């Protein structure tokens, strides 16, 4: 099992300033999955307890001179502490060296019997040089990697309808206000571009509606809507016509997922999975300086849906 590559400046910036801070908000450690073509950061893919996040990069987006080999179809996966990884990246950048080499190593620390695996980052500058060995878990076995890949494949299923949320900051401000009201958030998405957020307790009901958003996928014509009808009534009518889906998610998960804006996505789409299985958020990134989508980076979050019987 071998892995060695050189991080590009763009790769360092993507990881250290955007994606690792965002993923740290979800959990302390995550899976790092290396394949011959892609580098993938994953949260909660093997379990469905929390916010599931998958950030996939083509190897060229992060590395150059990328070399990987293993007996498991040249795939390697392990878990890594994100705070330590970020610190190692930050200190390696400060060396101001020519190249930042990343390598998988196994070594025995002082007076420890068994050798442990590390992700080693090495940077040689003019005045200083640094080697940072980030402790990682033992690489996943063939079975675990297969399971990870299967879960990843299943997570690629897109909802039939996606609406483009205009402003994540606005959504985050709204969520920060709503989180003090209750713990369960109801989200409704219609096929004609309405996005409903609604929280209800025994004493108060409060929500927001975003209307006429851009729709991708299956869409419907909303028809002439009676202005006197309330937002919740409109959603109810759309649900009855089969032109909308509504699910309940944990308010805590929703607020946590909104930290995704640390990755600075250019567009965000929300959709409800088939059979109301999950709330999916898909983010797109443009090539810097253009409106052209950057295919080398993809990010999506998936929130588990609560059983309506619990509310």
């Amino acid at each position, binding site marked *: 099992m071998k892995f060695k590559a050189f991080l590009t400046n763009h790769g360092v910036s993507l990881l250290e300033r955007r994606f690792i801070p965002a993923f740290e908000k979800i959990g302390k450690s995550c899976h790092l999955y290396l394949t011959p073509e892609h580098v993938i950061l994953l949260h909660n893919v093997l379990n469905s307890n929390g916010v599931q996040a998958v950030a996939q990069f083509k190897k060229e987006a992060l590395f150059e001179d990328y070399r990987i080999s293993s007996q498991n179809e040249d795939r390697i996966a392990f878990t890594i502490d994100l705070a330590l990884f970020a610190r190692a990246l930050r200190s390696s950048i400060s060396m101001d060296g020519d190249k930042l080499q990343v390598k998988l190593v196994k070594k025995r620390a*002082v007076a420890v019997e068994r050798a442990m695996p590390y992700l080693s980052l090495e940077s040689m500058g003019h005045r*200083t040089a640094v080697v940072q060995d980030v402790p990682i878990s033992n690489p996943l076995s063939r079975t675990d990697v297969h399971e990870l890949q299967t879960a990843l494949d299943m997570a690629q299923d897109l909802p039939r309808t996606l609406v483009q949320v205009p402003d994540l900051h606005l959504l985050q401000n709204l969520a920060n206000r709503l989180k003090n009201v209750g713990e369960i958030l109801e989200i409704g998405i219609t096929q004609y571009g309405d996005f409903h957020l609604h929280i209800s307790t025994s004493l108060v009901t409060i929500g927001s509606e975003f209307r006429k958003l851009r729709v991708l996928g299956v869409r419907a014509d909303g028809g002439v809507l009676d202005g006197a009808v309330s937002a919740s009534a409109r959603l109810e009518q759309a649900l009855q016509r089969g032109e909308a889906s509504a699910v309940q998610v944990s308010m805590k998960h929703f607020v946590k997922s909104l930290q995704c804006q640390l990755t600075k996505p250019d567009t965000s789409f929300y959709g409800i999975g088939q059979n109301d299985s999950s709330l999916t958020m898909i983010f797109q990134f443009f090539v810097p300086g253009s409106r052209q989508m950057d295919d080398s980076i993809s990010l999506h979050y998936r929130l588990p849906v609560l059983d309506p019987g619990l509310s």
Partner: protein
Amino acid sequence: MECLLTGNQIKALQRSINCLARIGNELLIEALPEKLILRALNASRSAFLEISFKARFFDAYRVLVPVAQCGVLLKAVCTVFRLPPSSMERIAIILPDIAATKLQWTLECLHGIRKTYWITCISDPDMQHVALERDSFPSHLVVKPCDLNRLLSNFQASLQEITLIATEPSPMWTMGSKSIPDGKAVELRSYIDPVKESNDAALHTQLWIDPAEELQEYVHQGLAVDVTFSLKELKAFLAFCEGSEADMHIFFEKAGKPILLAPRFGLDDSRYADFDAVLVLATMLGSQLREADSEGTLPQVGGNSTPHSQVNRPNVDVAPEPQISLQRMQRLSVSVSRSADRHSDQTKIWSEVSGSATKSWDNRDAIRVSTYLQDSNHASEEILLDLHHHQIDQSKTINHENAAIPHDCTHPSSPLPSSTMRIGDGIPQPIQRHGSSGAVLDPVPNIQVDRSFVFIRNPGNWVSDTDDDDDDEDDDSCVQSTPPQRRGMF
């Protein structure tokens, strides 16, 4: 004893109290006619801080007896300084007489507010004193606090001990028509305490520094030495030096000997300053570089062992007062005897950037220096990670190396083995230089030196090119980490 302070002196005193509070729990005050001395000793007796203020530091300073001593809790003194110094106009510290049970602190603050604190003196203070001559240390360095802060930011915030490795800086030397600059002669390395269970989650950091670029002054001659000491007290003293706008002077000798830190004012140490500080830190007995040397001198660690045997006796001038000598300063880690018994790869790895080619090596170490040749085509420093998590089988790895290796590096007491390198075709061949032992070594063949530094490599960490890591899934040899000399060379 009575002293009066105003203005910037209050800030200096507050800074001193904050630093002392980060070292120990008790403040030991000794008032002499010519100066006031504040001391603190930590609970494990591994760190001792002394800050002395000359009489001219104060607006008024009066001591009516030859010496006045008392001890108070630092927590109580910190309470006095809870206010920002800018809101304090004047502070008076009064010890009415030698037998006084309370130390009086009177603060005159803004807007005519006067606060008076009577802090109870400790009934039987353990007046400690450590007298160490700075000239007795063979090595020292001077660093700006902001630079050291920047270097320490590379380490994990929760790191408790750090190792400083000092090598002799090499002068400019030439090879052919090339002038090759000096290497990075100083290394800072995170120390991983083997007794702690959280080692699996610890970031391992090795930082090499070019003393000409990062340090104000650096003096070290002879063999490489390493000292491992607590980072917490270092950071406290660093903050003190930074606030005092002074560089930090670090004096050291070798593992097991205490290190001494002091502020350095301008071009002259402290001749014209009206206060001075000295921090003495105990260091680990076990050397990270030469475990074999330290094995014979390690005392047994235990509750009944006399403090006298625990620390190498320094060559110090011990003051006549009831004092701790350094014999009573305990080691930082109780596991040194355990660590010395175990063989470690990391401790045998030597920095490639230390520029150690021209150093004279102790014959005991039997270290042979070889020149690194960049050979990316045949680089096989990649590490085998056994999917079945087998232990590294060092003997297998070593067997792939050239048979000229005289030492069994798996034996914990063996000195560093000779190194080999591979040339062009990937066949390991020994390349040796003339060492200090006088042995005539094979001449270096026609090689192209790509890097400006030389290194010592531990074959126990080397993966031979002939190893095929994809052959056998059940292969027990778990390839070890890349030696530093091969890192970043591609």
